């Protein structure tokens, strides 16, 4: 709870710093503030009480998600010091907006009321609409922002329709009440309730970029500034899934809806992975791979077993770590390769910076799900969970698609470790190096000693 307040205030503070032109202070303050937020979240561990008239509830899962997301944001901010160094204006706004967005993410992890869910999504999204367009002079950035905004609003409309319908049946936005109704209705809910849940699920599917509501993600990932893309791919995805899972846990999706979402999962797994095969732009590749990961995560959400929260947390967190690290590497490569974001430009990385390449390798292997990296444990947990939930055939597909996933990640590895005629002159500042290294170490450490939420 206090974390929520802290980040809100932090955002304002950053804006003030911007107003007073203290550009150099922005990153330290932001990082310190977020560290504080982690600390505050940590103190809230085991203090699991409903707050604000059952609006939010910071249970352990929420605390863990919040800390993880904050941690990822800190990594991004550390990277941002270098990233924003060449930016003249609006730096404070960027920081502040990201912190605000993080605040929205906190709401998504802890809501117990649909209104909070709705606001959480909006608080999360609106800054992102803006941030995606953060590179104002860039056409692509603008296009990304616009697409994101328009499709996002559309999805919001659908989502709201869902809330309205659910409200019509339950006369409340409180998850507890909704849960009661859902229990009472059992496997054959009234059409209105079913429709309500359906629209809410669709709205959330958009946020997590599930096929066919994923169309925004490749374009936005590509167009948005890399830092924002990384934020979207990690924190936003984590928050959206946490929100989704919470909903599913309370409403225990009606069977037909679950089936429909399973079909969506299948589509997501298939299209996300298959299309990623043909991507040459690294950011688009990451976007499709993110769609692909959405497929795996949807299995967790739909499976909705006792282990779901833990699995989801582990998966999204480790995925986030790897993604952040890779985006940093990509930025460094991009600078060395005259702004090219193509996978091809990774070529020669090992020659130029062996350790960077090896860390990138670890991160990629983690995304691909090769053992002793966190990604493997994450994927395995997903399979286990999906099998437990009875999704035998879908799991088979997921396994096959995991292979396809490996295929496109390994191509990046191959490029990075192929020698190039022209050496890639990669400049690595200490902070960048630190971020990448932290990600790499974390990914391996979490792979060797997987954590589990209690």
């Amino acid at each position, binding site marked *: 709870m206090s974390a929520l307040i802290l980040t*809100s205030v932090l*955002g*304002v503070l950053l*804006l003030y710093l911007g107003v007073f032109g203290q550009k150099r202070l922005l990153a330290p303050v932001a990082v310190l503030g977020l560290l504080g937020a982690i600390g505050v979240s940590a103190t809230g561990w085991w203090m699991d009480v409903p*707050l*604000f*008239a059952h*609006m*939010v509830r910071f249970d352990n899962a929420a605390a863990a998600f919040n800390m993880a997301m904050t941690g990822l944001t800190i990594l991004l901010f550390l990277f941002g010091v270098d990233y924003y160094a060449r930016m003249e*204006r*609006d730096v404070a*706004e960027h920081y*502040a*907006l990201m912190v*605000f*967005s993080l*605040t*929205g993410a906190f*709401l998504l992890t802890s809501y117990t*009321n649909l*209104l*909070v869910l709705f*606001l*959480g999504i*909006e*608080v999360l999204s*609106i*800054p992102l*609409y*803006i941030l995606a*367009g*953060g*590179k*104002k*002079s*860039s*056409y*692509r*950035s603008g296009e990304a*922002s616009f697409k994101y905004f328009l499709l996002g609003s559309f999805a919001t409309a659908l989502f709201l329709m869902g809330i309205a319908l659910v409200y*019509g*049946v339950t*006369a409340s936005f409180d998850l507890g009440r909704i849960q009661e109704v859902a229990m009472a209705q059992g496997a054959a809910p*009234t*059409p*209105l309730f*079913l*429709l309500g849940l359906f629209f809410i699920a669709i709205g959330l599917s958009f946020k997590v970029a599930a096929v066919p509501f994923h169309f925004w993600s490749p374009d936005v990932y590509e167009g948005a500034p890399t830092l924002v893309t990384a934020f979207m791919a990690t924190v936003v995805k984590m928050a959206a899934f946490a929100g989704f899972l919470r909903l599913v846990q309370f409403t225990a999706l009606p069977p037909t809806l679950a089936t429909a979402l399973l079909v969506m999962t299948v589509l997501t797994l298939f299209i996300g992975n298959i299309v990623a095969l043909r991507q040459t732009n690294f950011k688009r590749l990451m976007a499709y791979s993110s769609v692909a990961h959405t497929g795996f995560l949807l299995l967790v959400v739909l499976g909705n077993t006792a282990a779901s929260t833990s699995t989801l947390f582990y998966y999204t967190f480790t995925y986030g770590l790897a993604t952040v690290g890779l985006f940093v590497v990509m930025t460094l490569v991009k600078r060395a390769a005259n702004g090219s974001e193509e996978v091809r430009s990774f070529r020669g990385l090992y020659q130029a910076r062996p350790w960077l390449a090896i860390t990138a390798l670890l991160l990629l292997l983690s995304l691909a799900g090769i053992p002793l990296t966190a990604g493997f444990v994450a994927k395995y947990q997903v399979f286990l969970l999906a099998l437990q939930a009875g999704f035998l055939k879908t799991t088979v597909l997921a396994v096959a698609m995991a292979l396809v996933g490996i295929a496109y990640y390994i191509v990046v590895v191959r490029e990075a470790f192929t020698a190039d005629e022209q050496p890639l002159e990669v400049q690595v500042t200490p902070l960048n190096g630190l971020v990448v290294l932290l990600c790499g170490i974390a990914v391996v450490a979490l792979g060797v000693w997987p954590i589990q939420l209690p």
Partner: protein
Amino acid sequence: MLTLFYLFAAISVLSALVVVAARSPVNSVIALIVCFLSIAGHYILLNAQFLAVVHIIVYTGAIMVLFLFVIMLLNLNRSSEPQKSLATRVAAVVAGGLVLLTLLAAVRQGISVEPARDFDIGTGLVRSVGRSLFNEFLLPFEVSSVLFLSAMVGAVMLGRREKNPQAA
């Protein structure tokens, strides 16, 4: 009462159609305003007086004016804007129709929602809504400030011209 409802309903549906179909953006805006006004009528029918007022202020007064303003500012009021191909438009109508059909089909057996037993006649009034807002919904209320702040910051940030625009 029912007659009034049908009247408002007809107005809102018709004006909504006009919003979609009108050639000129300004016409659309005006149709939308009409639509919103009719919706405000519904609110009154539903005894949601507070909401009706806020609705008119926010939508008709603020949002729609903003729309108009932007249309004028960007000089978008050309009636000959390019249209989508016929096939696309038909597809759009069909899609909308299908959604409507499906939704209606879903509720054709009734919505089986039991209205509350003990009605509070003050439900839609300022007092009731306000109490609710500042008790139960305090957190969302506070959070919305963050929302607005970010929207403001964003609007300023994006709306401001770059001093030294450079090619992407």
